């Protein structure tokens, strides 16, 4: 059954004010186009969860979409700070809940598994555990020692960008796979964006590559270049210059607003955004092919 629709429809249908949202992807496949669409549709009071908020949540916070962030690392990867989120946190204008990467990912893993919590070995550091009451402890019933726990995270909606999917939502992902699968299984609704919509025979030719199966997916959106300025392995490179530029843009709120006006509100969708980036950037982000060696599944 096809679930193809525009990203605008998908956001309109599955992202409501006040929802908890997990836009997945650890540095790779970050669904920027979906974040921009959420900004364009003016969503408010969202709870934005991501291990690494990255620029996507900095932009959404700047646009006033969020009341809270849940994270484990709020940096601009390879550059420095996320100035907007940092300023909002320092000013007490944004709620937050903080974990380590492993704590954050364990929350998703519990949510995806249908478990109420996940255990982790103690790290002895202590201060974050004391600062966040969601960190708790249980006694290992075998050794009698304490393990640390985090509660399941079950976002209202997960947004997952993938390289290729069929119209029903079976999705192939490769390269860094971060927490894509866990976020999709943990969430109540899943919006899938894909660089390519392919025939189901392509997907079925390599079922071990399918990390997300159709029946947990609500909407499938064909959104080439969705991940810019992050990247899609094999499709285009990370736009590092953009990450450096954002650091400058966010030195002033006026510049941020101007940027949003031009690049989010000023374009109707990702295709227009990509077009607007222009040939020079397109060229700079191109990557030469490097193909995997196929495997034989056998015609049983």
């Amino acid at each position: 059954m096809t679930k193809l629709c525009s990203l605008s429809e998908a956001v309109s249908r599955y992202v409501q004010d006040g929802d908890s949202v997990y836009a997945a992807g650890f540095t790779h496949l970050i669904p920027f186009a979906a974040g921009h669409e959420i900004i364009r549709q003016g969503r408010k009071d969202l709870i934005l969860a991501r291990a690494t908020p990255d620029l996507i949540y900095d932009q959404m916070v700047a646009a006033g979409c969020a009341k809270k962030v849940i994270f484990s690392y709020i940096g601009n990867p390879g550059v420095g700070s996320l100035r907007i989120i940092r300023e909002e946190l320092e000013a007490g204008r944004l709620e937050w809940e903080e974990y380590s990467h492993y704590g954050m990912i364990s929350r998703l893993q519990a949510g995806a598994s249908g478990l109420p919590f996940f255990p982790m070995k103690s790290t002895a550091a202590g201060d974050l555990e004391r600062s966040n009451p969601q960190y708790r402890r249980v006694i290992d019933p075998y050794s009698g020692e304490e393990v640390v726990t985090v509660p399941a995270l079950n976002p209202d909606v997960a947004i997952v960008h993938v390289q290729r999917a069929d119209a029903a939502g079976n999705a192939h992902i490769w390269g860094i796979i971060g927490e894509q699968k866990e976020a999709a299984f943990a969430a109540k609704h899943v919006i899938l964006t894909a660089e390519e919509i392919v025939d189901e025979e392509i997907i079925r030719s390599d079922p071990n590559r399918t990390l997300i199966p159709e029946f947990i997916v609500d909407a499938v959106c064909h959104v080439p270049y969705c991940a810019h300025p992050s990247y899609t392995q094999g499709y285009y490179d990370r736009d590092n210059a953009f990450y450096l530029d954002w650091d400058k843009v966010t030195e002033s709120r006026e510049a941020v607003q101007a940027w949003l006006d031009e690049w989010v509100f000023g374009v109707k969708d990702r295709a227009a955004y990509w077009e607007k980036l222009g040939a020079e950037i397109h060229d700079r982000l191109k990557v030469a092919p490097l193909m995997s060696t196929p495997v034989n599944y056998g015609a049983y």
Partner: protein
Amino acid sequence: MAFTASELMTVNAARLLRDGDTVFVGVGLPNLACNLARRTHAPGLVMIYEAGVIGARPARLPLSIGDPTLVSGANAVCSMYDIFSLYLQRGNVDVGFLGGAQIDRFGNINATVIGDYEHPKTRLPGSGGSMEIAAWANRCYIITPHQKRRFPEKVDFRTSAGFLGGRAERESSGVRGGGPQAVVTNLGIMEPDETGELVLTALHPGITVDQARENTGWALRTRGTIRITEPPTTEELRILHEELDPQGIHLK
């Protein structure tokens, strides 16, 4: 011959790695140090990135911890849950590199806030993976410039465990890793003594004990005879500048 701070730190960090080590690598200087070690005395180094990449063979200098060049040609890629559980928590990581805004007398690290947690003066990025790396890697190394504000007597927030209040406290906590083994700075090297306190054990050529003391927030003690580090060799510098960071992005 003078060396920049980043050259000194990178070369000295590289020399702490052993052939065959499995290293949890960060971007920046640790990445340069690992790649330098792999091209010199440690060809069997296995480089693991927290993004889930194992045995990376980057064709260019990775600009972020999730750079696609880390993936193409790697031995394996796995999920974040797997990298933290099967690799780090299971005890499959020999070495972790760490940094932070503050490192205290017992090697505890603050990467979370300056000031009060609820009402921070400065909000820092937070733990990322460093809480687990500091706890579970067999050996940890810290690379950071030597400045008084970076080395307070006690960190404002203990993001990652060094020796806590002293070596005995870390040992009784039951965490598996051995804790910080060395802090490599632009002035020299500090190592934990038998109590877990960081003491000065080496200086780079031309640096004095007093310079190190002036730039440390506690009464820095020395251990035995202070070793003078070997200067970066021509070959080490050549690899760094010609092969690893030709554009001078990290080595300023």
